[in-house]
């Protein structure tokens, strides 16, 4: 019961976060892109809650809109890699044989690259932009899901209910989607939930390096990159988006932990 409460609580927080991110353009007090040089680099005050950046843009508004950029691109990335990875993993684990060998050798290739370094290379080849950064991370990150799904399929594919379904003449596609997928979905969901924080940090990191979101786009990593040279005189320019990343990642991590505790039968 306690675990269920934790799950609901963090689930609600996530929901709140998503609603704020989705509604950001409509609830911001100022236009996040409107420059107003006379009010540049104001410290946090009653009018600009988190201060202004060097172009006089309201940081609170930019952080809110940045939530949309960062969270939704991370969610998009996560859904693409988990769906694709699970698909490949199930095919590989279910059919085995040469299909498995070929698919797993392909994952080997991508796993040979450290994630961020591959992303740096792809970002360099594709050029900047938040979607390119996401694509760069996706190219490496799907392999993890494929590997995990394949391993899980291995443990269930000789279970009596699968064998029974096969003897009944159930089609392979139906066995995979109706019997295997529901069985491994829990573990995969936990992995994805725990991954969200890392993905947000990696995406923001690429933007921070200037390989992701491009200015003037309001994105947390890019905003921090913008303010880092002024950290001594105007620390709020860096701290506000940084704290936003921290809080979001923390909430997603807590949510991931609570999902795991809830679904893990071991405990």
């Amino acid at each position, binding site marked *: 019961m306690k675990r269920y409460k934790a799950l609901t609580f963090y689930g609600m927080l996530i929901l709140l976060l998503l609603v704020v991110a989705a509604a950001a353009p409509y609830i911001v007090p100022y236009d996040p892109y409107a420059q107003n040089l006379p009010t540049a680099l104001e410290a946090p005050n009653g009018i600009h809650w988190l201060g202004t950046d060097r172009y006089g843009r309201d940081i609170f508004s930019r952080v809110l809109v940045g939530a949309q950029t960062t969270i939704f691109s991370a969610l998009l990335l996560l859904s693409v890699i988990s769906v694709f990875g699970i698909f490949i993993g199930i095919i590989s684990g279910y059919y085995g044989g040469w299909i498995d060998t070929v698919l797993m050798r392909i994952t080997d290739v991508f796993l*040979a690259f450290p*994630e*961020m370094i591959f992303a740096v290379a*792809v970002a360099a*080849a594709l050029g900047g932009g938040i979607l390119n950064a996401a694509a760069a991370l996706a190219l490496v990150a799907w392999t993890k899901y494929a590997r995990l799904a394949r391993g899980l399929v291995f443990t269930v594919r000789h279970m009596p209910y699968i064998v029974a379904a096969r003897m009944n003449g159930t089609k392979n596609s139906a066995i995979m989607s109706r019997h295997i997928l529901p069985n491994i979905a829990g573990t995969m969901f936990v992995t994805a939930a725990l991954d969200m924080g890392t993905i947000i940090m990696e995406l*923001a*990191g690429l933007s921070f390096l200037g390989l992701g979101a491009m200015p003037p786009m309001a994105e947390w990593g890019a905003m921090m990159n913008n303010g880092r040279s002024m950290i001594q005189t105007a620390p709020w320019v860096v701290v506000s988006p940084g704290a936003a990343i921290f809080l979001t*990642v923390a909430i997603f991590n807590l949510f991931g932990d609570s999902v795991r505790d809830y679904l893990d039968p071991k405990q």
Partner: protein
Amino acid sequence: MHKYIIKRCIQLIPILFWITFLSFSMMHITADDAVDMFYEQSGAVSEAVKAEKRKELGLDKPFFVQYGSWVTGVLTGNMGTSFISNKLVFETFIDKLSATVELMLVSLSMTLLIATPLGVLAAVKQNTALDYLLRFTSFIGNSLPNFFVALLLIYFFALKLEWLPIMGNQSDWHTVVLPAGTLTIAMGAKYMRQIRSVVLEELEKAYVAGARARGIPESTILLHSVMKSVCITVITLAALSCGSLLGGTAIVESIFMWDGVGKMAVDAILTRDYPLIQAYVIWMSVIYVMVNLAADLAYHYLDPRIRLEEGDGR
């Protein structure tokens, strides 16, 4: 054991091929821009001059010819010259690699020295105030992106307290503290969490109960039995974090102006200096693959269970 080592080394060959092939093709897709970039500063330049430069750099030949000559170069340590500085790429890379390796080793040892005892302590004192405090700290460390940690450390320790320099030459050990500390915070948080759960898991096992029943002191149990499994976890973590370390140094090095390969790569991307980027991607991946291989061999040596499994003819 020998058979296993040989088998693993043979498996490396196709992987190394794909690493070089993929990184080469990725750079190739956009490599023409480099010539445009090169002449951008010098104002309007006719297409004839650009074509001449492309010829000089070998960018006008067919794809596979370029790949072939390039890969032979890689094998002989000749990766061409930088588009921008005209220096030899391989030498530039090796030159800067030592700084990155130094940063990685310092942060890895700091992590191990801090996280291992704290992880064990949290497990031994499970569910006490100390355990909660350590877990909370590790949670915070896990949720902070390293570039934010870096900037916070700069703000507090370099600008406000003025204890440590932000950047400077490498000969002064003070300069390594902040960049290495940044990497340590994220890694240490992860290590502590993992080590704590491994120790807890081990302490539940029957052999520990048996040892306790025989009256063996708790410290002996911890040091002699439990630490063995902690070792395996630490090796796994170190091998895994080698990947994120290699990538993470790119961010940290550019923030602290640490003159290593990570900063070199980021600078190279901004100037589209493809030979340098290629060298970075390939050599970092090769190092990563090698470290993983070493870790696998280390498990073999340390964990008889894995040794037996491999013996099953898998």
